């Protein structure tokens, strides 16, 4: 008996703990919403209860995970009730605190009147009318009259109240504090019944139960394979479905079918006709325009996250039943539909960002339109080629489908956003790039860097410097010559190196077979060791010089793209920003080579401060505390702000994708393994042959270069740059993104920036409370998901290794038949 009681006690204790955390989180949410609520309380009010319930559900799941197989109904109920009580206690304590704040004159009552009055009343069982008997504050002193009777403390009321039976969920009424506990306990238990672990339904238990009772061959198949398969596929096409939902809420010009416009049949007057959306949130759900905006933003973020999650659940499975043609049609359906939607949107709503974007490249309007169409079709064609090639193997179906739908979604989505949404997504993308950079140093290599903002600032100010000096930099003809020479200088070595590498690849095909001999004579081709014969090199040299001369000729003599320099040196700024930030990272790398842990953090912190102080004091270069003002956008001066924002959003989206791609590739290469080993144990990594100097400097340089890209994009987004934009806060924010997303996890960075930049950005007025929310979120993360929101899974390589190995093993004369193994290898790489 005592044993049982003790055990029960432990469950209750867990429940109380969870309840406290839950209540704490709710308080955090309220704090986040607090200042925002003063202005936009009517938008927040409807969210309070759903968030509350959601959190309860989350904690119910946590509870189940804690119990695992020890879960019994009694224990779960006890735990759930305890949790509910804990939540209520924390919440009510907080409300008491608020009460006292209010007594000191904080103007929180308006907010609470809308957001939390109902919640408080329901939790405490105190009628709403009794919660707010407060008098008006005095207009001048903004304080309550001294003899005023302040509003009743809900905690005391809840305890003293005898007839608290007012818990009202709309469809059910139960009693206050204890009623609440009961209701939440029931919710927890209901959720618990559904959840075992993280899957929505416990398939195995359900299967066993089903097999026992109703098992027939057909039903078994349905339950054992078809249903899980359907869920899996639902997950895969979730981004597309969500996108359609988003699309249906966007107000568009439906009166004029886009094809008429494309064909030139409609007139401007017709096109100005009614704009509407298929799903009118304002009318049907009574949402304010701001709420609709935020809803759509959340949809955008959800689509991105669902894309990432779908990417994680990919499986290699044979879909041999579906013929090649069917697979191709399936995979191409979505990109083509999206292209149609995008064209529709552009044409019917006259989105004109593409033309100015391209006209800054020196094209006139007609050329720009043509070029933009070419770019659009080019994307589709590239995707189509990818689809056609990779679907030859039916194992690739899932991955191909996801990417063929996901990439177009990411590229189409910006078109459907309004200016406010664009700027929020913009910021998220920029922070994603920043986070990707920091993720390399902190997440991969485990070097704590608190000075990341320095490189961000370098990139931003390089952009500001170059764009502000546009007229000097692009001085007509001289500029063309410069561009020509730069092209030549870049192209020539590129051609030589690439051609040499391809020659070596052809020549050293046996390297792979030799390497697998298992002997100690393991030797790989190296770039500068296995040179092609002199004649080949000479030929390459001639070719390279020819290419370089050709490039120079095109620029200088023909004047191709001569507008590039004159209109905007954006690309120059991007490259220079990247290089100078990378160089700054390289420089920072040196002094910190021998430092670890805390010391490293302090030095990098100092470096960040040095840069931000330099920004303030190098007045000639940076404009000092007044900053760099009126920095031009990377567009012609006649472009509107909306167009500029959209352009930058595209640049930032593509930049984030590119950076994520690079980060992923680096992780799965020799360099990434070296970094991960470094993070694990520096000394052992060195003993395994990893050059620490090299690894650390590379990490810092690449990370800083990424931050430089982010800086350039950030500067292009702002019109004024001030040193205060580059304070320590940014470094901390980015670090929080990396940690909350999951150290070393690339999708985690995206999720982290959405959670820490995108969502708070929707509540702009809360700035002061953001740090507090960070704190709360970090604490909650440590408790609930110590590895981050999307922690890095281990790299799975064995299956592929086995395939590669068996391929070698089965055909010892692989050297004699390089063509066959070649094809196999390519197929393996496509995956």
């Amino acid at each position, binding site marked *: 008996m005592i044993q049982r009681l003790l055990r029960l006690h432990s469950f209750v204790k867990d429940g109380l703990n969870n309840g406290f955390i839950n209540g704490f989180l709710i308080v955090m949410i309220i704090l986040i919403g607090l200042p925002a609520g003063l202005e936009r309380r009517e938008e927040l009010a409807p969210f309070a209860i759903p968030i509350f319930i959601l959190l309860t559900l989350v904690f119910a799941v946590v509870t189940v995970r804690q119990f695992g197989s020890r879960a019994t109904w009694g224990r779960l109920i006890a735990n759930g009730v305890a949790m509910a009580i804990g939540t209520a206690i924390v919440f009510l304590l907080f409300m008491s605190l608020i009460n006292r704040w209010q007594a000191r004159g904080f103007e929180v009552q308006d907010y609470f009147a809308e957001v939390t009055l109902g919640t408080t009343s329901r939790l405490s069982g105190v009628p709403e009318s009794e919660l707010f008997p407060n008098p008006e504050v005095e207009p001048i002193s903004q304080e309550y009259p001294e003899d005023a009777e302040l509003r009743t403390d809900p905690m005391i009321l809840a305890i003293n109240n005898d007839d608290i039976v007012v818990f009202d969920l709309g469809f059910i009424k139960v009693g206050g504090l204890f009623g609440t506990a009961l209701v939440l306990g029931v919710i927890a238990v209901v959720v618990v019944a559904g959840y075992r672990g993280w899957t929505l339904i416990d398939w195995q238990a359900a299967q066993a139960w089903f097999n026992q009772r109703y098992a027939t061959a057909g039903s078994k198949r349905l339950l054992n394979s078809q249903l899980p398969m359907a869920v899996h596929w639902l997950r895969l096409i979730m981004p597309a479905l969500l996108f359609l939902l988003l699309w249906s809420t966007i107000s568009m010009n439906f009166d004029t079918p886009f094809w008429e416009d494309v064909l030139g049949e409609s007139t401007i007057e017709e096109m100005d006709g009614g704009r509407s959306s298929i799903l009118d949130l304002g009318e049907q759900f009574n949402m304010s325009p701001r709420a609709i905006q935020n809803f759509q933003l959340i949809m955008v973020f959800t689509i991105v996250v669902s894309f990432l999650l779908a990417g994680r659940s990919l499986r290699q499975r044979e879909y041999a039943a579906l013929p090649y043609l069917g697979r191709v049609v399936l995979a191409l359906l979505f990109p083509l539909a999206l292209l149609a939607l995008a064209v529709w949107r552009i044409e019917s709503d006259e989105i004109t960002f593409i033309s100015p974007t391209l006209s800054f490249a020196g094209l006139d309007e007609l050329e720009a339109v043509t070029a933009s169409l070419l770019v659009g079709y080019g994307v589709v064609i590239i995707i189509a080629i990818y689809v056609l090639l990779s679907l030859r193997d039916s194992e690739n179906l899932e991955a191909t489908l996801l990417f063929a739908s996901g990439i177009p979604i990411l590229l189409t989505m910006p078109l459907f956003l309004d200016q406010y949404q664009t700027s929020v997504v913009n910021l998220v993308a920029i922070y994603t790039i920043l986070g990707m950079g920091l993720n390399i140093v902190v997440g991969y290599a485990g070097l704590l860097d608190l000075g990341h903002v320095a490189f961000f600032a370098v990139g931003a100010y390089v952009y500001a410097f170059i764009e502000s000096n546009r007229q000097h930099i692009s001085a007509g003809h001289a500029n063309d010559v410069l561009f020509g020479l730069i092209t030549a200088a870049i192209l020539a070595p590129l051609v030589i190196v690439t051609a040499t*590498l*391809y020659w*070596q*690849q052809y020549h*050293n*095909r046996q*390297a*792979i077979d030799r*390497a*697998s001999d*298992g002997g*100690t004579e*393991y*030797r*790989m*081709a*190296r*770039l500068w060791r296995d040179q092609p014969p002199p004649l080949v090199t000479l030929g390459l040299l001639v070719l390279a010089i020819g290419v370089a001369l050709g490039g120079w000729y095109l620029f200088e003599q023909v004047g191709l793209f001569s507008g590039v320099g004159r209109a905007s040196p954006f690309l120059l700024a991007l490259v220079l920003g990247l290089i100078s930030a990378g160089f700054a990272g390289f420089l920072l790398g040196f002094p910190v080579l021998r430092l670890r842990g805390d010391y490293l953090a302090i030095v990098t912190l100092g470096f960040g401060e040095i840069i931000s102080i330099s920004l303030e004091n190098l007045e000639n270069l940076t404009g000092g505390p007044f900053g760099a003002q009126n920095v031009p956008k990377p567009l012609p001066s006649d472009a509107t702000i909306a167009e500029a924002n959209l352009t930058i959003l595209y640049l930032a989206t593509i930049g984030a994708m590119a950076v994520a791609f*690079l980060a992923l*590739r*680096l992780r799965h*290469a*020799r*360099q*990434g*393994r*070296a970094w*991960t*080993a470094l*993070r*694990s*144990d520096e*000394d*052992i*990594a*060195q*003993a*395994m*042959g*990893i*050059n*620490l100097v090299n690894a650390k400097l*590379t990490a810092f340089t*690449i990370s800083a270069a990424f931050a430089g890209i982010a800086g350039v994009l950030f500067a292009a987004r702002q019109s004024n740059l001030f040193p205060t934009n580059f304070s320590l806060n940014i470094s901390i924010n980015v670090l929080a993104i990396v940690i909350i997303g999951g150290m*070393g996890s690339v999708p985690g960075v995206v999720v982290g920036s959405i959670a820490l930049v995108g969502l708070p950005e929707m509540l702009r007025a809360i700035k002061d409370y953001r740090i507090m929310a960070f704190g709360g979120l970090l604490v909650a993360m440590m408790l609930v998901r110590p590895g981050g929101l999307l922690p*890095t899974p*281990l*790299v*799975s*390589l*064995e*299956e*592929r*290794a*086995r395939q*590669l*190995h068996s391929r*070698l093993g089965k055909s010892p004369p692989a050297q004699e038949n390089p063509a066959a193994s070649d094809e196999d*290898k390519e197929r393996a*790489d496509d995956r």
Partner: protein
Amino acid sequence: MTGNASQPNNGDVVLDVQGITKRFGGLVAVSEASLTIYRGMIASLIGPNGAGKTTFFNCVTGFYTPDRGLIHFMGSNIAGLRPDQINARGIARTYQNIHLFHNMSTLENIMVGAHTRLSAGPTGASIRHPLNREEEEATLIKAYELLEFIDLTGMGDLDATNLSYGAQRRLEIARALASDPLLLLLDEPTAGMNPHETEEMMRFIRRLRDERGLTIFLIEHDMGLVMNISDQVSVLDYGRKIAEGTPEEVQRNPLVIEAYLGRPPEELEEDEVATAAEEDAS
């Protein structure tokens, strides 16, 4: 009792340590120790606790720079080089306490070991150049073969730190092997193992020498193992080498017996020495 697989052949020197000294403040951890190891040998380093064996290893692998003395590996001096440079020259080691890389799968752990034998840089990796891709594949195949060699197939995707103790030991050796070493240093490979596992490890070490042509240099407290497989045994005591030779020679050496037991050796029989030493070690 000598390792009967193969005698040290043709006399080419792999490792030649000449009078190294390492001090930590006033403590002399290794003092004027010299040692020569020939190709294909299994050499052991024994000594009571605190005799400076691991310090000796650390000097050879570059963790410490010896205060005095030379370490010739394959004919060139490596004293003072960084650990990664020494690894690149062909010396790999394992540790007394297992140090695997966490956050990495078993297979990846092995692949890290091949670091110095690969050339891909960040640029090549980010464009996934064909040459790098081939290198990656070759590394993967090689790592898989090592995985087979240590009988861990099917566990390649597991977190390396979740493997069983013996498997972790073998994995550490496989990681060292991935760097294609000429000389493998094993620091107490059977620490914490039961007799059965020790037996297995002994066979495994022999296989390393016989199948992969490695020269092996190990620190060990298990005298049974040492006397069984070593071609040459060196004894350190208070940082000083007090004896060297075949297991039989060392066993009879009065200095060794004194170092381990601290009393006149006449009263003891041969086997008892070994047993006593074993107890001393544990």
